[in-house]
């Protein structure tokens, strides 16, 4: 019975095409997925993954082709219709209402009712049950979404999706905002759902997640379905080749020999609230220093403090032996310190989405292109052209809104914007999050080029492979402190994981080892 169920695809697309104002998003795609299985979809940004899941979840409608769910042909015009047929999506962009409570959000589309009015107690109990289901008992269903951390919000999002009793659950980068603790929880929940017969489509840029979780993998490229195969049938190298369609000889650019460098950015005993508990660190000119450790150990706060965003920071910060803790981002980027920060969230902190690419590129360096009180047209055109050329940003016209670019190219705009300020210190907060493999590699090369031009780079990444491949030195943080530093050949995955965990309790160490990192 179960085998029969599992053999027949639950959702099936055949000959599906979708064009957005002439540009191909999907073309002639045949694709199927089953219940009781976790199915990964891999591909660069722009490969058509998002369009595929949006069609399945009823957000967009295909131009041609058919979608069959459980034997019936469907054409969803709204997400609610897809949910009715059993397809529920946890979107990458959070779909929660910040001013409503957790319980309100979980039951938003179909709240329990009594006499036609919303039964708030039943709603709260429902939220409690669903939160317990994903081991988030610490979230109070009455608290407002805006008072929760990003990671907890994402968990609420998953609870909300489970509340719709999905037969096929689509997770679009659903783990990218989670802390390690919540990631473990989600892995367990997905495993439980699988044994209960739920099908899952899993989209992630984190290869180790895909390898750990999924049974079947499908690769998309340029709007086409390239290949579907079982886990283990292809090596990582082969998968990466399928995704980008060309050979990658070296994923990371070669590192220079380890040198003893004079500190350029020097931080000592930095403290803020209870998140930074005395951080001491130095980054030399031409050096890439990585920040490692589990998520949420103060890495983000350290970068924000160095960029002047936080109030009430104590300790000592010098750049080239001078200066103090910057009072504001304007202070950090100007004057003697010349610090740049590529922020965590490019859509809200990095870019002004409706403004043009050119305006976004210039926004941090108007002082370089102005003539008295006016912005010099010739200078700014030149600066924009240089920035686009240097980062090879793929665009139609610099006057197009920056929102029209793909995620990877948007991130390039954020980086190019800061390069125009000619920074001496570059702070990078997880710059490759949610961008495609090809662009990632370009960014790795760029970082090395900048270092070779004497920029001091402090690089926080949640991906151990990046830290190992890119950094001259890696400082591992735990509980607002730097606990260990590695350099050169000593930077290995085992060393990083061990350093992040050695000081925690033995029980935790065992729990971590069970999860492939």
């Amino acid at each position, binding site marked *: 019975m179960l085998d029969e169920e599992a053999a027949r695809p639950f959702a099936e697309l055949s000959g599906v095409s979708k064009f957005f104002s002439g540009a191909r998003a999907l073309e002639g795609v045949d694709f199927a997925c089953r219940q009781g299985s976790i199915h990964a979809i891999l591909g660069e940004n722009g490969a058509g993954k998002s369009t595929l899941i949006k069609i399945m979840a009823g957000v967009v409608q295909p131009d041609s082709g058919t979608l069959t769910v459980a034997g019936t042909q469907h054409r969803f015009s709204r997400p609610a219709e897809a949910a009715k047929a059993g397809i529920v999506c946890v979107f990458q962009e959070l779909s929660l209402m910040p001013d409503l409570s957790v319980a309100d959000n979980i039951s*938003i589309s179909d709240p329990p009712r009594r006499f036609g009015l919303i039964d708030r107690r039943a709603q709260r109990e429902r939220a409690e049950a669903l939160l317990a289901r994903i081991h988030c008992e610490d979230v109070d269903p009455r608290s407002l979404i805006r008072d929760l951390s990003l990671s907890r919000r994402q968990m609420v999002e998953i609870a909300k999706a489970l509340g719709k009793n999905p037969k096929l659950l689509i997770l679009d980068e659903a783990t990218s905002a989670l802390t390690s603790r919540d990631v473990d929880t989600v892995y367990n929940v997905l495993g439980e759902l699988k044994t209960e017969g739920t099908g899952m489509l899993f989209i992630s840029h984190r290869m180790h997640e895909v390898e750990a979780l999924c049974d079947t993998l499908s690769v998309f490229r340029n709007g086409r379905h390239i290949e579907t195969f079982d886990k283990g049938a292809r090596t990582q190298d082969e998968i990466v080749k399928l995704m980008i369609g060309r050979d990658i000889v070296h994923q990371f650019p070669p590192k220079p020999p380890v040198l003893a460098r004079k500190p350029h950015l020097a931080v000592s005993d930095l403290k803020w609230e209870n998140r930074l508990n005395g951080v001491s660190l130095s980054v030399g000119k031409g050096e890439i220093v990585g920040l490692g450790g589990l998520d949420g150990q103060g890495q983000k706060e350290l970068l924000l403090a160095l960029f002047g965003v936080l*109030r009430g920071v104590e300790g000592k910060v010098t750049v080239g032996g001078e200066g103090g803790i910057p009072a504001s981002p304007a202070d950090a980027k100007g004057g003697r310190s010349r610090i740049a920060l590529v922020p965590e969230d490019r859509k809200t902190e990095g870019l002004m989405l409706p403004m043009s690419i050119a305006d976004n590129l210039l926004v941090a360096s108007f002082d370089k292109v102005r003539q008295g009180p006016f912005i010099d047209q010739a200078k700014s055109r030149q600066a924009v052209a240089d920035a686009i050329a240097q980062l090879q940003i793929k665009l139609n016209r610099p006057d197009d809104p920056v929102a029209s670019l793909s995620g990877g190219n948007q991130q390039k705009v954020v980086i190019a914007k800061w390069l125009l300020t000619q920074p001496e210190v570059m702070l990078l907060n997880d710059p490759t999050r949610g961008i495609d493999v090809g662009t990632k590699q370009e960014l790795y090369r760029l970082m090395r080029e900048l270092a070779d031009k004497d920029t001091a780079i402090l690089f926080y990444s949640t991906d151990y492979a990046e830290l190992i491949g890119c950094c001259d030195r890696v400082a591992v943080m735990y509980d607002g402190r730097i606990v260990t530093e590695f350099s050169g050949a000593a930077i290995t995955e085992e060393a990083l994981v061990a350093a992040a965990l050695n000081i925690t309790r033995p029980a935790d160490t065992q729990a971590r080892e069970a999860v492939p990192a």
Partner: protein
Amino acid sequence: MSAVTATTPPRASALAMSIRQNRGFYGAILLLALLYLVYNFIHPRGFSTNVFIANTNESVALAFVAMAQAMTVIVGGLDLSVGAVMTLTSCIASELVRGEPWQIVLGCIVSVAAGAGFGLVNGLVIVYGRLQPIIATLATGAVAIGLALLIRPQPGGEVDLDLNWAVTNSIKDLAETYHLFEDGEAAWLQPVAWVPVPLLILVIVTAAVWIPFRRTVTGRTLYAIGSSEGAAYMSGLPINRAKLWAFTLAGFFAGCAGLYLAIQTGSGNADIPQAGAYTLNSIAAVVLGGISLLGGVGTVIGALIGALILRAISFYFRILSIDPLLQPLVEGVVLLAAVSLGAIRTLRVKNRLELFR
């Protein structure tokens, strides 16, 4: 690690939670209580039924207009036509609310329905014309004033006098006028006989319309839209229907304001400056009552409190011989102070990025 998460931290009580999440609202209630208590202490005839009745009478129209405004602000919009719709319905009421009892009742219903209908038109223009509420209602507000002038080129009208007396006095007077409850002498009525009818009207309309509406899916959707319209859409909520309801109810409340104004003054007047003043005061009342102009936060009851605060301030001018010309200035300062008080929280924010969220 998951073993650690299984322990649930102690939870705050429901009231503590509510206060923490609605500081603006509770602050407004405190401010109103303070203002009104002090006023009564200063007033030579303070704490008397007559003063209370007179004060509530003057507050009803603004309270309803503020409640109308609240409906649209909660969805993240702004309605510049609420004052004009109030004026229009008061002119309609001044023509219809007279004659036989059934004519009076019908006149009241038609007036309020006209307000709701006008609100529905606002909603249709905004939802299906895809216009921004602020500009759409600027235009429809002018239309409403135009219609009011057509109906009543000169101030006037003869609203039923019994009704005027009954609705602007205490419950006892109401009962006496219509020979109810032994002419208001029934023993069970005595504990509440002093309650002003205008207050009763506000309470009944709020309790009968807003409180149940808030617990419907449509009511919940209003907050969802104001909080994050994209997320509301992606959750498959009935966005268009909810917006139509928001503007229709705004029209309904503005209609209630117009009807009451007509009964209270006994006439109708297509007074353009008055309409404008009511619209602007409604926005001030909404903010004072703890409703976020960004949408998604606050309740219609908050707007009611905000309107009462504004009125309470104006009462002071009568008993403390201050030049009434200073009234706008004082109201402006209070509004500024209240809003600044709400912003104090931001001084404690240690991560400046949170200021922009």
